[in-house]
């Protein structure tokens, strides 16, 4: 028996002992989930007692919940006892020693996306000792933020240094009762980002998980909390166009946004996790709960470009609680191979004169399934509320599926809700025009698809938009036959 296995064995034994042993030195938990697992994670992170309790309550509630089955996705049942819920930062011994050991397919993609070598190493998880130039970037970055009074750190750090803020807002937008995956996340989340923008402050730069120290190994149950105090503004970028090496198949993240009076939060995501191979083997299951609460005059805007994951199940939503608050959702979801996406948004209008806009562009290619699912709910108090939704689907090939499932629930006669959806394909005439002007078919298709997505890309921060365009191009390769 190897040393490692011995340790696990020992741990398993210990789990059945009466009482909880807090001073476990092991860095990795064996698969399995019970209250002790939850306590272990909390203890490992040195969390205050209230936090441990909260996690435990979440866990107990989660046990009473059913795995959701309403989404238009199919996958074998997940055995939640077969997953390991805690692993400390990966030992460098396991990581590839150099780029030579990395999957060449991955490298080819990096190449095409024009990602610098150092970044390629980081993304591929190559064990580099010398941390490259970005350290200095990060330092200046931190100084600038501190000057503005912005808090930007990991949730664990925030729990230590700003417990009152975390306690006040964590779970206030996505309670652990909300849904199955949010419940699970609340019990076992490993880490994530915390952002606080003080009153009246305009965050001096775009915040990005990409630059966050500690970004690696936040693991499969990530938790993000962003609080924009009155009159403040922040733009937050999540993810990266490069496919990240990742060994966890199940991801169940939770993102909570709180935009207090007059505040604005702009949250942009590019998701490009491993989608599995052409036959659908492997690939990430991405079950995310993202929601924001917009108070009076506040604005929350979600923009997402989703090209990765084997299964995507996510509905970034806005609760328009305050009068005159604004919610936006701009989405591009591209599926190919055997990918399945069920994604969309919820706009819950509660305040007066609240406004929401939904623009969703779904592109399905090859054998994939792509569904938009959205809810627009106008509650009786939402006097003068207004929603506009545009959902367009583009099909490439005749073996894929494109679906639209909008739910409209209106209970206020002064509100106006409008929904439109269309389905089209890349037309032969468009393709021919491009080819007659000298473009090869792949370039032509990616150009047409980019055009189809323009309304969404426009909402992305500049560099992100350029990258997203390239990403689509790379993702579409080989999808045109």
């Amino acid at each position, binding site marked *: 028996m190897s040393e490692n296995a011995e340790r696990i064995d020992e741990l398993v034994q210990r789990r059945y002992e009466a009482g909880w042993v807090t001073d476990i030195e092991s860095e990795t938990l064996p698969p399995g989930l019970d209250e002790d697992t939850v306590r272990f994670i909390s203890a490992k992170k040195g969390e205050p007692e209230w936090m441990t309790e909260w996690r435990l309550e979440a866990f107990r509630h989660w046990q009473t919940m059913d795995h959701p089955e*309403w989404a238009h996705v199919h996958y074998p049942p997940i055995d939640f006892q077969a997953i390991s819920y805690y692993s400390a930062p990966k030992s460098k011994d396991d990581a590839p020693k150099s780029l030579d050991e990395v999957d060449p397919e991955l490298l080819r993609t990096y190449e095409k996306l024009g990602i610098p070598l150092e970044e390629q190493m980081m993304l591929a998880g190559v064990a580099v000792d010398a941390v490259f130039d970005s350290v200095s970037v990060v330092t200046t970055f931190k100084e600038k933020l501190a000057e503005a009074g912005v808090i930007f750190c990991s949730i664990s750090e925030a729990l230590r240094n700003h417990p009152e803020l975390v306690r006040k807002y964590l779970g206030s937008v996505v309670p652990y009762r909300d849904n199955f995956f949010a419940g699970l996340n609340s019990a076992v989340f490993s880490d994530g980002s915390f952002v606080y923008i003080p009153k009246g402050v305009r965050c001096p730069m775009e915040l990005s998980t990409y630059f966050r120290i500690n970004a690696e190994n936040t693991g499969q149950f990530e938790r993000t909390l962003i609080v924009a105090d009155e009159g403040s503004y922040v733009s937050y970028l999540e993810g990266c166009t490069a496919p990240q090496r990742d060994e966890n198949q199940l991801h169940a993240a939770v993102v909570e946004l709180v935009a207090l009076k007059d505040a604005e939060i702009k949250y942009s995501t590019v998701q490009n996790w491993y989608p599995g191979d052409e036959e659908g083997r492997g690939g990430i299951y991405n079950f995310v709960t993202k929601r924001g609460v917009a108070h009076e005059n506040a604005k929350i805007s979600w923009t997402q470009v989703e090209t990765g994951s084997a299964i995507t199940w996510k509905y970034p939503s806005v609760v328009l609680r305050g009068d005159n608050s604004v919610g936006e959702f701009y989405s591009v979801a591209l599926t190919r191979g055997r990918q399945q996406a069920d994604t969309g948004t919820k706009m819950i209008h509660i305040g007066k004169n609240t406004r929401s806009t939904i623009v969703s562009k779904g592109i399905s290619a090859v054998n994939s399934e792509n569904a938009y699912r959205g809810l627009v709910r*106008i509650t*009786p108090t939402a006097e003068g509320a207004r929603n506009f939704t545009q959902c367009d*689907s583009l*099909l*490439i*090939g*005749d*073996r*894929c*599926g*494109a*679906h*639209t*499932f*909008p*739910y*409209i*629930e*209106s*209970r*206020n*006669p*002064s*509100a*106006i*809700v*409008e*929904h*439109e*959806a*269309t*389905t*089209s*394909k890349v037309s032969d005439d468009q393709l021919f025009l491009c080819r007659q002007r000298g473009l090869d078919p792949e370039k032509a298709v990616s150009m047409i698809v980019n055009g189809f997505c323009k309304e969404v890309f426009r909402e992305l921060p500049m560099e992100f938009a350029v990258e997203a365009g390239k990403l689509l191009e790379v993702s579409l390769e080989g999808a045109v036959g």
Partner: protein
Amino acid sequence: MAQTDRIEDFTRNAQARAEALAEGSGPLAALRAAGRDAFAAAELPGRKTESWKYSRVGALLEEGLLDRPDPGADPVAVADFPGLDADRMLLVDGVPRGLPKPGEGVVLRRLAELAELEAADLGALAPAQERPFVALNAALAEDGVLLHVGRGVRVERPLELVLAQGAGTAPRGAHPRILVVLEPGAELALLERQLGAGAVFTNAVIEVHVKEGARLDHVRLGLDAGDGRWLTALDVRVDRDGRYGLHQALVGSRFRRNEIRIRMAGAGAEATVGAATLTRDRTHLDTQMSLEHEVPHCTSDQRFRSIAGERSRTVLNGRIHIHPQAQKTAAEFNTRNLLLSTDAEIDAKPELEIYADDVKCAHGATVGRLDPTSLFYLRSRGLGETEARTMLSFAFLGSIVDAFPLEAVGSAVRAELETAFARPAEETP
């Protein structure tokens, strides 16, 4: 009673009643046997059943749905449409009472007397699997009507199909069953009327087969509000180059749920649907529409217009399903809704489910209010506010009703809807 107990009780009682009807032979008995099996396998809709998200049937199950109606009951009053010259088939609580003598090429038969040969489509067009109430209808069907139009026969006089409830106050359940078959090239205008707002819970199933090149104009009226409980399933199959038009005017009642499934089963088939609905007071109206494009080169066009006032609820689920291979489909769905009260609710769920790429599909849905500019315009010309609102609201429904194929019916329905719209709200406790 708790929901689970209620469902268990109901299921047990329903099975017992179905067993009691197990005797007999012939197509109807076969239908009942299949219905019994399907009902035993099906699950009654619960809180998590997606297609029943906005309709709770729960407590209604205890109100006589399984009790056999009085066979001698007088039907509720059946008024004529001025100016309409039609042959009338009258069913009271699902049992035919006097079938007209139709013209040449048209056959009207009681299902109870049906020969094997005529029954090919019975139960095949409206499969009972996973639809507990369709299964229940089949399991408890004791009679019904087959309407058969022969090859190439163009029926001049419209046929009126009246599904009337029996008068009386004891809660009962009726399970009318209708089968309509148009042979290739046949043409017919069918006027279906759902009459009654009383104690009988009506759970009807209507099967329609429009064969190659045939044409059916189906006008469907359910204009009795009040306490009526109506659950209807309409399953239509349209073959090659066939045309099917569904023209509906419905008002809400205590419970009205309308499941419609139209299958485009032959290339060149066309379906058009126009529906005007009005719910007021505490009424409920749930339409579950599914358009199945199974083959290439078919066209469908659906328009729904709804108004909900007071404490009522209007639900519309409009699904377009394009199967693989159904290339060159053109399908459109559009619903516009007017919400008149803070206590009313409109739930609209247009759906596209698409598995073929060379198609033109679109849907649109709006929920809103009367356009203030138009309202102002009318008032500036001297109309009172109420009058102006009525006029505009009604213009909205009128666009559907005015397009009804039987003109006499269209204008009568218009008047009836106008009255229903204009009357003062019922006192609500």
